[in-house]
C-alpha cells in the first residue's frame, strides 16, 4: 500500500488530492499540505542524503528551515537546484527530487570510505595536510578535494525564471506567524496600524499547527486559521507567507525572501519565482519562535534520529508517524508532549530517557505511556546504519543495555530564534533558568516576543505578543486596545534543557554540526589544541559555518566547549550571526535587473537612425554610442574608421555629441563661479564666445575638461566629458552649496534637453548653411570659438557653436532632443552634395589623438594640467579649486611624465595603449619605467600608428627614441618621441 506511515486521520493535509512525485527516480504519492520530508516519511523513506565530509547516511532531523541533513536536489535541467531542504520544500504534483552527495547511489556510496579514514579527516585536517609539497596544491589536492566535497550540483543552464525586488513600508513588522506573532499582528492591525506579518511557512500558525493544544473554543490550529482570516480582512495588514525575513539592517530596514512560485513546478505566466522584499518598518516584533537542539550521542546522525518537536509536527500537522517504536531522549519536560502524541497516534514507546533527572512531566508521560523511564540516563549510541534499528542506553549508574526501536526522538531544550536580533551586533545573553541565549540588545525599534524571547509557554507567548503588538501600534500613534489573549490549557511541561552535552561513551561518531560533519571529538580536539574561544572553535572545526549557520549546532557546540574546559556557558560566549538567516539566491537580490537590464541604457537622440544605418555600437558608461558605420565591402572596423576619418579630413562628417554632459549655469555670479572652478577664466569672456576649460580636484590633479560658452552676461552653457558628467555636476553643486554659498549661481543639467551634432570637415560650413533657416555662419558671422542662437527646420530654436574636437573646421549644432532624430536625417540630406558621412566614436578617437586632445585616458586622475601640457592655461590672477596644490614643486617638476606624442620607428609597427616607456638600452624593469602610453590609433593622415603618452621630461625629449614595452602582450616597439599633434600643427584648419 502507498504511504504506509500515513496515519488514518488527522493532519492539515488534503487527503482527497493525491500528488505524485519522485525521489531518486522512484514514484511516490503525497498530498497538498505535505512537505517533501513529510511525504517521504509517509512513504517510509527515511534515508534521504549523504553527509558533506564522511558521506554518512542521513535522514530527516527537523521539520523546518533549520534542517541540516535532508538536503536534496529539486527539479531538473535549468531549474535544478541543489541543497533544497526537504523539510520546507512544499510538495507539488510532478515534483522531482534527487539525493545528493552520493556516488553511485544513495544506499551504496563509495565515498563513505571517507569515514574509515576519519582519523585524518578531523578538524584542522585541511590545515595540517596538503601542506607539502605546495606545488601539488593546484594540480592534485584541490581538484581531489573539490570532487569529494561540496553539496549538490548547480544547474548548468541559465536560470529561466524571473525575480522581483520590492519595497514595503509599514508601522509594525511582525516576524513569525506563530502564537506570539499572530497576537502581535492582530493587536497592531486591529488598531489600524500598517502591519506586515512575514512567516516562512506556507500556513500561519507556527507551533499551533504542530502541537495538540486547546486554544479558546477549539484547537490551536483552528485558532490560527481564524486569526489568519481576520488578518486577511484588515485592509492595512499585509500577510506574507512563504516569506523568510533574512536580515535586519540599519534604520529599521529588513530583508525578506518570498518564495512566490517555489511550491509550483514552474511559475505562473509573468510571475516571479521569488520576490525579495525590502521592508522599512517603524517598529518590529520578532516572534520567530525557537529551534530545538539535539543532544549528541554516538551515531546520532542515523536516519530515524529526529528532534522531539519535529516528531510532533509530523504526527499532528502532517498525519505521519515517523516511527512505530520510539525511544524518547530528552533533558527537559517539553518532550513529554512527544511521548503523549506518539502514544495517541498508536506508536509504541520503547523507553523514555530523562538525561536531566529533573523532568517530572516527562516522567509522568512515560508512566502514562507505560514505557520504561531511564532516570538520569543517556542514549549512548544508535545502531542500524541506514536507519535506526535500536539504541544503546546507559542508566544513571553506567549500566548499558540495548533497546530495539525505529525512531529516537531527542530534545536538548530549545534555542530562541534570536539570530535577526543580533544582526546589528547586539550580543545575546545567557539565561540560566531557561538554559538559553536571549536577545541582549536588539536593533532599535525591535521587540522580541514569544519563544524567541524565552516565553516558551503558549499562554506567555499569546500575552507577550499581544502586549508588544499593542505597544508597537501605540508607539506609531495609534489607539490600540489591550490584546485579549485566548484561553489556553496550562503547559506545566516547562522547557529548560540544561545539558549534559558530553556523551557518556566515545563509541560511534557523535555529531554536533550535522551539515558540516563536526563531531564531539572535533570540539575536544579544538579544546586540546588551544582553540577554546568560540570564534576559534568555529573557524577551526567549521562548526556553524554551513548553510544552516549552525542553527541546531552552535549552542550545543559551545555548551560542549564549556563543559570540556570547565567554564560556564556565558564565560565561553557565543558567536553572532550575519544576514541572511536562510540562504538567498543572488538572482533574488538582483531582481529584474540582470543581463542587459542590469543597468539602464542611455540612448542618444540619433540612436534609432544609427541602428537603421547598421552602426556598430559601443557602451560608454551607461551610453550606447555609435562606434562606426560600416559600409558594404569594408573588411573590418579599422577600414571603416579610416574611411570615416578621411571623409572628415577631406569633406565633411557628422557625429552625435549628445552624450557630453551639458550644464546650464545662470546667476549674477555665474562668471565668478566658473573662474573659481576652472583653471582659466570665464568672467571676462565676451558673450557669444566659447572656450576650452580644465577643472582640477582640490589636490591639484585634473578632474575634467570641456567647453564653456557664454550666452548672456549671466548665462553660461558648460559641457563636460561623457565619462565625468555626473562627477562634474556633483563637484559643481558641492562648490556652489558648500564652498561659496554666497554666490548667486544656479545649475541645471540639460544633457538630455539637447541633441547635439558635430559637423566637421572642410565642407562643414556648406552643410550648416544649408541647414539653418537664415543665419550668417561665415567666419564673420560665426568665427572660430563663437556661439549663436539660430533656428533650423523652419523655426526650431537651436544653438550653434564653432568648436572643433577633430581639428577640422567644425560646428556643433544643438537642437531640442525631440528633433534629434529628424535633425540627423536633415544633416545627412543637407550634406549629401558635399559627400557627408556619419562617423562614430572610433573615428572621433583617431582624430582627437591626431590633434593631441586629452580624453578620459589622459584625464585619468593621476595627471595634472602641467602634465597635460596645459600649464600655461593656469591663471595666476585668481584662486581656483586645486590651484595651491597644483603649484606644489613635485607637481610642476619637469621630470614628471608629461604628455607627448609617439610614432613607431618602424612605421609599419603597431602601438599598444598601456605600454611602458623604457630607455633604449635599459632592461624593462620598474626602476627603468619612464612613463606609459595612454592612447593609440592608426592615423590615416600619417600612414602609421600614432600614440599619446606621458614620458618623464617628455617635451624636452622630442626626437629621442625610446622603447614602448608591453609585457602583457609581449610588445616591445621602438618609438620616436614627437610633439603631441600629428595633423595641422599650426591649427589653421579649425579657423576655416
Amino acid at each position: 500500500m502507498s504511504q504506509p506511515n500515513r496515519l488514518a486521520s488527522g493532519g492539515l493535509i488534503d487527503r482527497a488530492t493525491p500528488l505524485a512525485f519522485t525521489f531518486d527516480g522512484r514514484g511516490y504519492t503525497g498530498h497538498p499540505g505535505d512537505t517533501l520530508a513529510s511525504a517521504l516519511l509517509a512513504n517510509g523513506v527515511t534515508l534521504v542524503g549523504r553527509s558533506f565530509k564522511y558521506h554518512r547516511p542521513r535522514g530527516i532531523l527537523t521539520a523546518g528551515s533549520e534542517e541540516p541533513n535532508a538536503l536534496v536536489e529539486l527539479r531538473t535541467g535549468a531549474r535544478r537546484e541543489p541543497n533544497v531542504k526537504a523539510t520546507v520544500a512544499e510538495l507539488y504534483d510532478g515534483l522531482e527530487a534527487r539525493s545528493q552527495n552520493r556516488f553511485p547511489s544513495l544506499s551504496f556510496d563509495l565515498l563513505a570510505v571517507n569515514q574509515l579514514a576519519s582519523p585524518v579527516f578531523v578538524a584542522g585536517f585541511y590545515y595540517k595536510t596538503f601542506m607539502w609539497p605546495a606545488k601539488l596544491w593546484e594540480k592534485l589536492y584541490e581538484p581531489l578535494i573539490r570532487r569529494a566535497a561540496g553539496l549538490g550540483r548547480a544547474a548548468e543552464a541559465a536560470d529561466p525564471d524571473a525575480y522581483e525586488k520590492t519595497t514595503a513600508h509599514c508601522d509594525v513588522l511582525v516576524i513569525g506567524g506563530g502564537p506570539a506573532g499572530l497576537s502581535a499582528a492582530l493587536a497592531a492591525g486591529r488598531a489600524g496600524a500598517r502591519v506586515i506579518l512575514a512567516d516562512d511557512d506556507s500556513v500561519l500558525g507556527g507551533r499551533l499547527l504542530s502541537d495538540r493544544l486547546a486554544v479558546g473554543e477549539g484547537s490551536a490550529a483552528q485558532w490560527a486559521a481564524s486569526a489568519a482570516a481576520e488578518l486577511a480582512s484588515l485592509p492595512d495588514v499585509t500577510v506574507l507567507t512563504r516569506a523568510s525575513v533574512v536580515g535586519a539592517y540599519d534604520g529599521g530596514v529588513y530583508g525578506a525572501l518570498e518564495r512566490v512560485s517555489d511550491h509550483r513546478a514552474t511559475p505562473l505566466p509573468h510571475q516571479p519565482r521569488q520576490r525579495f522584499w525590502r521592508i522599512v518598518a517603524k517598529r518590529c516584533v520578532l516572534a520567530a519562535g525557537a529551534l530545538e537542539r539535539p543532544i549528541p550521542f554516538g551515531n546520532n546522525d542515523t536516519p530515524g534520529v529526529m528532534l522531539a518537536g519535529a516528531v510532533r509536527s509530523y504526527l499532528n500537522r502532517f498525519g505521519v508517524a515517523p516511527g512505530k517504536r520510539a525511544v524518547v531522549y530528552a533533558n527537559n519536560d517539553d518532550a513529554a508532549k512527544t511521548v503523549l502524541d506518539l502514544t495517541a497516534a498508536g506508536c509504541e514507546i520503547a523507553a523514555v530517557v530523562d538525561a536531566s533527572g529533573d523532568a517530572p512531566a516527562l516522567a509522568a508521560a512515560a508512566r502514562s505511556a507505560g514505557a520504561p523511564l531511564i532516570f538520569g540516563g543517556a542514549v549512548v549510541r544508535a545502531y542500524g546504519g541506514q536507519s535506526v534499528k535500536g539504541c544503546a542506553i546507559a542508566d544513571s549508574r553506567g549500566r548499558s543495555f540495548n533497546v530495539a526501536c525505529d525512531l529516537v526522538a531527542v530534545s536538548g531544550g530549545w534555542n530562541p530564534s534570536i539570530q535577526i536580533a543580533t544582526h546589528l551586533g547586539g550580543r545575546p545573553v545567557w539565561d540560566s533558568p531557561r538554559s538559553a541565549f536571549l536577545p541582549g540588545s536588539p536593533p532599535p525599534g525591535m521587540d522580541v516576543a514569544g519563544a524567541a524571547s524565552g516565553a516558551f509557554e503558549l499562554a506567555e507567548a499569546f500575552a507577550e505578543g499581544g502586549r508588544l503588538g499593542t505597544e508597537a501600534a501605540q508607539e506609531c500613534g495609534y489607539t490600540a486596545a489591550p490584546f485579549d489573549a485566548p484561553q489556553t490549557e496550562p503547559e506545566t511541561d516547562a522547557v529548560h534543557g540544561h545539558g549534559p552535552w558530553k556523551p557518556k561513551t566515545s563509541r560511534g561518531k557523535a555529531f554536533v554540526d550535522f551539515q558540516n560533519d563536526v563531531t564531539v571529538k572535533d570540539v575536544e580536539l579544538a579544546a586540546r589544541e588551544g582553540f577554546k574561544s568560540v570564534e576559534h572553535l568555529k573557524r577551526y572545526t567549521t562548526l556553524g559555518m554551513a548553510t544552516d549557520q549552525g542553527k541546531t549546532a552552535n549552542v550545543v557546540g559551545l555548551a560542549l566547549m564549556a563543559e570540556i574546559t570547565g567554564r560556564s556557558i556565558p564565560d565561553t560566549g557565543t558567536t553572532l550571526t550575519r544576514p541572511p538567516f536562510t540562504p538567498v539566491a543572488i538572482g533574488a537580490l538582483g531582481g529584474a535587473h540582470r543581463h542587459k537590464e542590469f543597468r539602464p541604457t542611455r540612448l542618444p537622440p540619433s540612436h534609432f537612425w544609427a541602428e537603421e544605418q547598421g552602426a556598430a555600437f559601443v557602451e560608454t558608461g551607461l551610453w550606447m554610442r555609435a562606434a562606426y558605420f560600416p559600409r558594404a565591402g569594408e573588411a573590418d572596423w579599422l577600414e571603416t574608421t579610416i574611411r570615416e576619418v578621411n571623409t572628415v579630413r577631406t569633406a565633411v562628417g557628422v557625429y552625435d555629441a549628445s552624450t557630453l554632459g551639458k550644464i546650464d549655469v545662470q546667476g549674477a555670479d555665474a562668471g565668478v563661479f566658473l573662474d573659481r572652478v576652472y583653471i582659466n577664466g570665464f568672467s571676462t569672456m565676451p558673450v557669444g564666445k566659447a572656450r576650452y576649460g580644465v577643472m582640477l580636484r582640490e589636490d591639484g590633479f585634473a578632474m575634467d575638461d570641456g567647453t564653456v560658452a557664454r550666452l548672456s552676461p549671466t548665462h553660461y552653457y558648460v559641457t563636460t566629458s561623457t565619462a565625468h558628467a555626473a562627477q562634474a555636476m556633483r563637484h559643481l553643486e558641492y562648490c556652489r552649496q558648500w564652498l561659496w554659498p554666497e554666490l548667486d549661481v544656479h545649475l541645471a543639467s540639460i544633457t538630455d534637453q539637447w541633441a547635439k551634432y558635430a559637423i566637421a570637415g572642410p565642407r562643414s560650413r556648406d552643410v550648416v548653411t544649408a541647414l539653418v533657416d537664415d543665419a550668417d555662419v561665415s567666419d564673420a558671422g560665426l568665427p572660430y570659438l563663437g556661439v549663436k542662437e539660430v533656428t533650423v527646420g523652419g523655426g526650431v530654436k537651436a544653438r550653434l557653436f564653432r568648436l572643433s574636437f577633430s581639428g577640422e573646421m567644425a560646428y556643433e549644432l544643438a537642437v531640442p532632443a525631440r528633433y534629434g532624430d529628424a535633425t540627423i536625417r536633415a544633416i545627412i540630406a543637407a550634406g549629401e552634395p558635399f559627400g557627408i558621412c556619419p562617423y562614430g566614436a572610433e573615428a572621433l578617437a583617431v582624430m582627437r589623438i591626431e590633434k593631441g586632445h586629452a580624453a578620459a585616458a589622459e584625464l585619468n586622475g593621476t595627471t595634472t594640467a602641467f602634465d597635460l601640457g596645459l600649464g600655461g592655461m593656469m591663471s595666476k590672477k585668481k584662486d581656483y579649486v586645486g590651484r595651491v596644490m597644483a603649484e606644489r614643486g613635485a607637481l610642476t617638476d619637469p621630470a614628471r611624465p608629461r604628455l607627448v606624442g609617439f610614432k613607431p620607428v618602424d612605421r609599419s609597427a603597431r602601438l599598444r595603449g598601456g605600454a611602458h616607456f623604457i630607455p633604449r638600452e635599459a632592461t624593462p624593469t620598474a626602476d627603468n619605467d619612464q612613463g606609459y602610453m595612454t592612447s593609440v590609433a592608426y592615423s590615416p593622415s600619417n600612414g602609421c600608428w600614432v600614440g599619446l603618452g606621458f614620458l618623464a621630461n617628455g617635451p624636452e625629449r622630442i626626437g629621442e627614441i625610446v622603447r614602448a614595452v608591453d609585457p602583457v602582450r609581449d610588445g616591445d616597439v621602438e618609438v620616436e618621441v614627437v610633439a603631441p599633434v600629428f595633423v595641422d600643427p599650426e591649427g589653421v584648419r579649425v579657423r576655416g
Partner: protein
Amino acid sequence: MRIPCPYCGVRGVDEFSYLGDATLVRPDASVPNAEAAFADYVYLRDNPAGRHRELWQHAVGCQSWLVVTRDTRTHAIEQVEAARDIAAARASGAE
C-alpha cells in the same frame, strides 16, 4: 541606513553619496603658508569612533549637500542639516 533629508524626508542610503569630514574649512589661498594648510585640508582626516559630522549629497534626490551628524559605531543619525545653511552661517560669521 536611512538618512532624513531636510527637503525630501527620510530616504535609503542608496540615494546618497558620501564625501567625508564636514568640519574641514577650505583654507585661504592667499596666505603665505597656504600650501601647508591645503595639504592638511586635502589629506589629513580624523577617523573618530563615535560622533562624526560628515558631508553627504542627496545625489539621487534633491541634489542638496548635507551635513550629517552620525555615530560611526551605531550608524545612529543625530542631526541632518543643509550644508548650504551651515556654509552661509560660517561665511557670514567669518566676515
